[in-house]
């Protein structure tokens, strides 16, 4: 191992990218744009009032009593607008179709003191959004029942071990996107850079010099590690920081940065992401062996990147995955990076936490395996 040669490879990669501003923009501006958009969508979701009507189809006395109690319980509840103009089931359905109502509570014709089923009617076009209106109605129903029994509804207070109960989706997603974007961009850029060495004839020339394969992989890791470091620093600053710009003339007030609350040490978060990035560099070099064109590098995205996005705990906890997919998730590097980042940034764990050490250890192991694979396949000729 010769430091002069490793540094020569490192400096060459820096020089190449300095002259390729578009790739630099991909590395630095694209993640910021995506995270800013994500933050914007998640943090300012419109919470519109749910428009509810109560329809009593039953002829019995019980129905009329319950309907009145429900209406008074729903009326004036925060987030709920009661519509008293709807009288029967068919008008209610039409009002749902016309988007004049979001949810209808129907007391069916056979509703009685014995058969106490209440129907909830929604449009069915957006199951998740419609379901979010149901808890408010359930609470009203529960309130009506307690009211009838002459008791007050107990209040429920939610607290959490880590973070706070009013943490948003954004707060738990932010640590994840930092790691995921780094993996994605570093993999794509290294894969394409190394493929160009193969097809441009420069690799042939490199191998005719005294540089060793390990020195090439190390030089590449340092070069892309440098760009990854800057990317992670920028993305972390954007995610964690928040700069409020006051309104000025016609420009409304706005904020730069997401201001996600974190209790962890950003340096440990950075360490996890850096080791993840080292693995991505070597994976890019390794997989470039199996591609002949730049387009074929992009064909690895569905194989390498998408499964990691779906299985690594980005959207769903690993424990909730189907049994067959859980072992797959446990060999993916991003899984360990995301777990480690959540431990550090949300739970405030540091290097004394066995969980963080395990994640870091697995990431180091995966990076070492990819580095060995990369070095072993460098000599493979372009077939």
């Amino acid at each position, binding site marked *: 191992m*010769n430091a*002069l*040669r490793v*540094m*020569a490879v490192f*400096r*060459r990669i820096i*020089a*190449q990218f300095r*002259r*390729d501003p578009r790739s630099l923009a991909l590395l630095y501006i694209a993640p910021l744009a995506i995270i800013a958009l994500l933050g914007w969508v998640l943090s300012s979701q419109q919470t519109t009032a749910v428009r509810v009507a109560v329809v009593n189809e039953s002829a019995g006395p019980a129905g009329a009593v319950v309907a009145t109690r429900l209406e008074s319980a729903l009326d004036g509840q925060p987030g709920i607008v009661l519509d008293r103009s709807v009288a029967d089931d068919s008008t209610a359905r039409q009002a749902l179709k016309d988007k004049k109502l979001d949810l209808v509570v129907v007391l069916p014709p056979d509703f009685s003191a014995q058969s106490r089923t209440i129907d909830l009617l929604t449009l069915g076009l957006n199951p998740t959004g419609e379901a979010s209106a149901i808890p408010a109605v359930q609470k009203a129903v529960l309130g009506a029942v307690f009211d009838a029994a002459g008791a007050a509804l107990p209040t429920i207070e939610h607290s959490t071990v880590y973070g706070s109960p009013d943490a948003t989706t954004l707060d738990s997603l932010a640590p994840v996107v930092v790691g995921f974007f780094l993996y994605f961009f570093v993999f794509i850029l290294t894969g394409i850079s190394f493929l160009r060495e193969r097809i*441009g*004839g*420069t690799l*042939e*020339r*490199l*191998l*005719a*010099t*005294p*540089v*060793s394969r390990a020195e090439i992989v190390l030089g590449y890791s340092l070069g892309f590690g440098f760009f990854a470091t800057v990317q992670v620093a920028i993305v972390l600053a954007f995610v964690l920081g928040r700069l409020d710009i006051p309104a000025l003339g016609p420009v409304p007030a706005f904020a730069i940065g997401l201001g996600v609350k974190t209790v962890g040490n950003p340096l440990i978060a950075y360490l996890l992401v850096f080791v993840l990035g080292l693995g991505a560099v070597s994976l890019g070099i390794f997989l470039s062996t199996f591609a002949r064109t730049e387009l074929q590098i992009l064909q690895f995205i569905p194989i390498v990147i998408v499964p990691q996005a779906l299985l690594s705990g980005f959207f769903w906890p690993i424990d909730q995955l189907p049994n067959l997919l859980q072992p797959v998730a446990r060999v993916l590097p991003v899984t360990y990076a995301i777990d480690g980042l959540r431990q550090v940034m949300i739970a405030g764990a540091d290097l004394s936490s066995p969980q963080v050490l395990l994640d870091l250890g697995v990431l180091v192991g995966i990076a070492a395996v990819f580095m060995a694979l990369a070095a072993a396949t460098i000599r493979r000729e372009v077939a």
Partner: protein
Amino acid sequence: MTLAPAPSAPPTAPTSPPPAVEAVALRKDFGPIHAIDGIDMALPPGRIYGLLGPNGSGKTTLIRLLTGLASATSGNAKVLSVAMPSRVNLAHIGYMTQSDGIYPELSVWENLSFFAALYGQTDKADLHRSLELVELDSRAGTPAMQLSGGMRRRLSLACALAHHPAVIFLDEPTVGVDPALRVQFWDHFHRLAADGATLLVSSHVMDEADRCDELLFIRDGHVLAQGTPAELRKRADTDNLEAAFLSFATQSATPSAAGSLAASSKEVAR
């Protein structure tokens, strides 16, 4: 300037120096194809050797075996008496590939200093002299992608020579190079040989053959004949090197291979 192992004894001395490039029963198969089919050679240092043969005759494969970039199926290759492949020995070897093998985003200077650094050559003044030799000193800051084809060839040559190698392999160095520049290239090659370097230059163009000290005619992975241009003409009893190549090829050809001979000699004559 440190030129590594120069021939200490003149060529006429009774004890000749060890060969700079040596092959013993060298063989390379790609599946059923015998790309190099048993080549023996011993090339004394300080001369320019021309490796002549049609496309697909095995010139590039032979150079890749001698530089250790490809591994032989059987037999041995030695450069400066060291068995190849040897990563350490590559420090004394220069290799100009058939493709330019330079980084298009990097400037002329960045390309040259990068390859030189891999050989441990970081003497800036010396690198500037290397650029002057190929007349690219005024273009040092130009990105390689903005150079003309001939300039890229010159940069590629400078990158192969920056560390003053004792043995230099040049794979079709003059392809795509205009006649005036070609003359400069050959003058440069002769200066290097005069300083003690050994050059192996592959070509499929016969009119360059006369500029070499010694020729190796190669076809189908065999060396058909070896000697100075004058010797080869005399042995084939012709004034014309194309005719000489055809004559040697006919002598060695099996009846079944004779049909392809006319085509390959035309290729050589091109």
